[in-house]
């Protein structure tokens, strides 16, 4: 059967062939405001202004004025849609040597760290035989191993995972705090609610950006109040739009990525921020990592903030082969595990959110710089997949770029590929981010072969500083994701799967709840406080909203072919139930529910006929999403 590709929407000309666009000039334009651009702008601001606030480096586009630095953030406000973390804060503390965590809401110094191995209290978890045997032994030796609430605390946390001396942070609150510091200097303007649709690529380089069109219909065509997105031309474009950022994707397509690099490894993180009950005895700064449950491949985290608040959630990795891997349902089962529920029962949901993470780390590194552009942050492959750390690394890449940019500005050198290579990339190669990233490169390969080889491989890589690792070949989703029939073989008959799918399609909902319950997972006993429906999590927790007048940012490139997809993993895994079975069971998109996690971009299990490294979904820049700054 031939493909019937729908014309991919080109945001540069969405709506009309060549709308007359307003133009503006800046010296530096930055795409996205997260930890990487926080580090970049913090460092840059200190260099372009003198201590008394006067201009140290004059603008090239507005003579007599200070350097014109613009940063455009997609989300409706700064700090929306990012996530809570524990970080060693090495780079962050270097930027703020006198940092008092009390200045940042929800921040706490790390006080203690534990790893809990969670046994399966419901009997539905798909554990390999060796793990089941181990579980029997652990239960039998319960009193000796101090097993409590179906959980065993590991006696030791490997050095490479430890975050002692670090911080528990709400990234929303941290980035808002950073933004206040930066804008307070007057050295940069950070504009939320301003999705960048496209980089302006000219003469083998980047000449600036175009903001998305406003006043358009779902398909991007002009509608009431059409306003073409403005062009902001600048000698340097700093791309910090994260792992699913459209500008990063565009540059990858335009300039390619280094030979042998890929982004096949990724994970979806989903979390709750909760008010803990009075009965919870965990101190601020407590860090719990969990493994083993609800599925062996799913890891959990629990970080305690000041004032009896915690961030808690799970990571669902790309190498978990379930095509029905709904993070929300698994998050609820994880929360209901006796070792977790004991701490949170009686608590209250404050916030909820989800984001995907690029987990190929340094092997997912794109071209870091070219004529007129440089890339920083998670989308630049900075995440360390061995130490499970990304924020500090992202921050530091921004600092490194700013140091290089200041050097070029002071020397009046242009932002050519060659100059950025020596001023930025060479600096980055000599940094701890790059050194630690190399150690981590093969650290997770073992997970491609299963959870046990994966854990062994991680320990080997961590303890030998990357010299030894378990082999494994990360694969793109279309080679990795199984069909529902394959995944549930021996548990649910193919006829029954088809019936469940048909019923779910008729209701316009995903099939995962019915499939999981049929596979033995109990129903969730909703209590209206912590155990709430997925839709209530969007409304009570994420406060998800979408302003009118923007195009759909999720685009199915070959919609007619989606009917032949066995897994429909885009529907099953959608964090906000924004992708759902529409007409004839084909995936449809509801922008008003999207939290912009980007899982659909990563997980499409059908190879794009034009580029098998990609799926058949385009993930454009879009406004809206989470309206919580506590995540």
């Amino acid at each position, binding site marked *: 059967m031939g493909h019937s590709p729908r014309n991919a929407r080109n945001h540069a000309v969405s709506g009309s062939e060549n709308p007359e666009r307003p133009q503006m000039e800046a010296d530096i334009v930055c795409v996205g405001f997260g930890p990487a651009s926080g580090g970049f702008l913090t460092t840059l601001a200190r260099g372009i202004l003198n201590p008394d606030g006067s201009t140290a480096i004059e603008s090239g586009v507005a003579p007599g004025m200070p350097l014109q630095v613009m940063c455009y953030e997609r989300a409706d406000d700064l700090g929306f849609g990012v996530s809570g973390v524990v970080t060693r804060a090495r780079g962050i503390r270097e930027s703020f040597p006198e940092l008092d965590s009390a200045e940042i809401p929800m921040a706490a110094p790390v006080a203690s760290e534990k790893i809990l191995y969670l046994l399966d209290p419901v009997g539905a978890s798909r554990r390999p035989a060796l793990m089941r045997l181990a579980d029997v032994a652990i239960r039998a030796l319960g009193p000796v191993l101090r097993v409590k609430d179906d959980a065993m605390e590991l006696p030791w946390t490997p050095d490479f995972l430890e975050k002692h001396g670090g911080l528990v942070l709400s990234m929303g609150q941290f980035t808002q705090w950073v933004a206040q510091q930066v804008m307070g200097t007057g050295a940069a303007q950070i504009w939320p609610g301003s999705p960048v649709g496209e980089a302006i690529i000219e003469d083998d380089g980047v000449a600036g950006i175009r903001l998305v069109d406003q006043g358009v219909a779902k398909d991007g065509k002009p509608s009431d*109040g059409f306003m073409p997105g403005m062009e902001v031309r600048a000698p340097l474009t700093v791309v910090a739009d994260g792992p699913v950022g459209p500008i990063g994707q565009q540059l990858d397509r335009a300039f390619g990525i280094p030979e042998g690099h890929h982004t096949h490894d990724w994970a979806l993180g989903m979390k709750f921020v909760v008010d803990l009950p009075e009965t919870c005895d965990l101190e601020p700064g407590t860090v719990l990592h969990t493994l083993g449950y609800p599925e062996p491949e799913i890891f959990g985290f629990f970080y305690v903030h000041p004032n009896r608040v915690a961030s808690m959630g799970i990571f669902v990795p790309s190498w978990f082969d379930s095509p029905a891997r709904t993070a929300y349902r698994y998050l609820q089962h994880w929360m209901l595990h006796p070792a977790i529920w004991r701490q949170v029962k009686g608590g209250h949901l404050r916030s909820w959110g989800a984001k995907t993470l690029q987990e190929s780390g340094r092997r997912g590194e794109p071209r870091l710089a070219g004529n007129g552009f440089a890339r920083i942050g998670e989308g630049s492959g900075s995440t360390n997949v061995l130490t499970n750390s990304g924020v500090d690394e992202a921050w530091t890449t921004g600092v490194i770029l700013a140091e290089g940019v200041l050097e070029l500005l002071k020397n009046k050198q242009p932002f050519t590929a060659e100059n950025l290579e020596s001023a930025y990339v060479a600096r980055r190669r000599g940094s701890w981010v790059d050194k630690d990233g190399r150690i981590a490169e093969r650290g997770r390969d073992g997970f491609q072969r299963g959870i046990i080889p994966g854990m062994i491989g991680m320990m080997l890589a961590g303890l030998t500083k990357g010299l030894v690792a378990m082999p494994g070949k990360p694969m793109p989703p279309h080679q990795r994701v199984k069909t529902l029939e394959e995944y549930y073989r021996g548990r649910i008959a193919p006829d029954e799967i088809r019936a469940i799918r048909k019923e779910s399609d008729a209701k316009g909902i995903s099939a995962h709840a019915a499939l999981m319950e049929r596979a033995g997972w109990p129903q969730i006993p909703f209590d209206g406080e912590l155990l709430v429906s997925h839709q209530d999590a969007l409304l009570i927790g994420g406060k998800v909203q979408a302003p009118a007048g923007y195009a759909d940012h999720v685009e199915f490139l070959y919609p007619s072919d989606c009917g032949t997809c066995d897994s429909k993993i885009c529907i099953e895994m959608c964090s906000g139930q924004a992708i759902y079975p529409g007409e004839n069971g084909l995936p449809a998109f509801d922008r008003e529910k999207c939290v912009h996690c980007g899982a659909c971009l990563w997980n499409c299990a059908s190879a794009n006929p034009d580029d098998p490294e990609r799926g058949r979904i385009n993930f454009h820049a879009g406004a809206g999403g989470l309206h919580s700054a*506590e995540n």
Partner: protein
Amino acid sequence: MPEYQIVVCGSIVPDPLQTLEPISGPAGPALKNEMMLPAWLDPWAGHALFEAANLASKNPGSKVWLVALGPKAKLQQVMMTLAQKVPFELVALDGPAGGFTDASETAAALAEAIQAIPGLDRSRMLVFGGWESASRGTGTTMQIVGEILGITDQFQGVDEIKIEASGALRILERIEGGRHQVSLCDAPPALLGWATGNLPEPRNNPQVGMANMRTIMPALQKAKPTKVGADGLTFSSVAVPKQARDTKIVKDLPADQIAAEIVEWITNK
């Protein structure tokens, strides 16, 4: 053509859908985690600001100020979005913006700030604000601002202003029964407390944002610390309306069917 000087009073409130929980703080009632909740310009004041900008754009030479009383850090945050909407000059007052301040104290601070705006000409001045406030339901703040400023032509619940050929202001105020009262006001000064008006929220315009920033950051830097509170008031109790949540999200449902479902839901509760 008249050149108006339009002063809009407006502050910030928590973004819609946020969970609000009253608590007792050292200075009286407060909202839990209010400084962490995302904020936005009070929607009533937002209508006033967008109407002011619309009126100014139709009357070249006119100018719009926004006088905002709120915590400086939150004001700065909100301004980064609001500044992209319409042109205005900010007058910032650094103080509390919650709903637990005495309207007269807030009004006094706003009136003082308005009187301090250099070059303000009463014969061209229109004072706009929200008829109500999403955080303060007394609906009296703007009236008191007008009284302090000595503006006797006051209109509340305004949905429309048009300029007659004579220069008179033709103003539509909401009255009971879903109707409007039409008033003619000969000339400024006048005070208009806006209801919803008729304008959609303007698109984000980066050029407008850039132009506004020239005055916004300096205004924030010199924001005057302003003490407003509720001295002498006693709050006997504070509570948010009781909620019963039963979420259902549907699209394009006919209004009759929505109404029927709500009636059925209420009946069964």
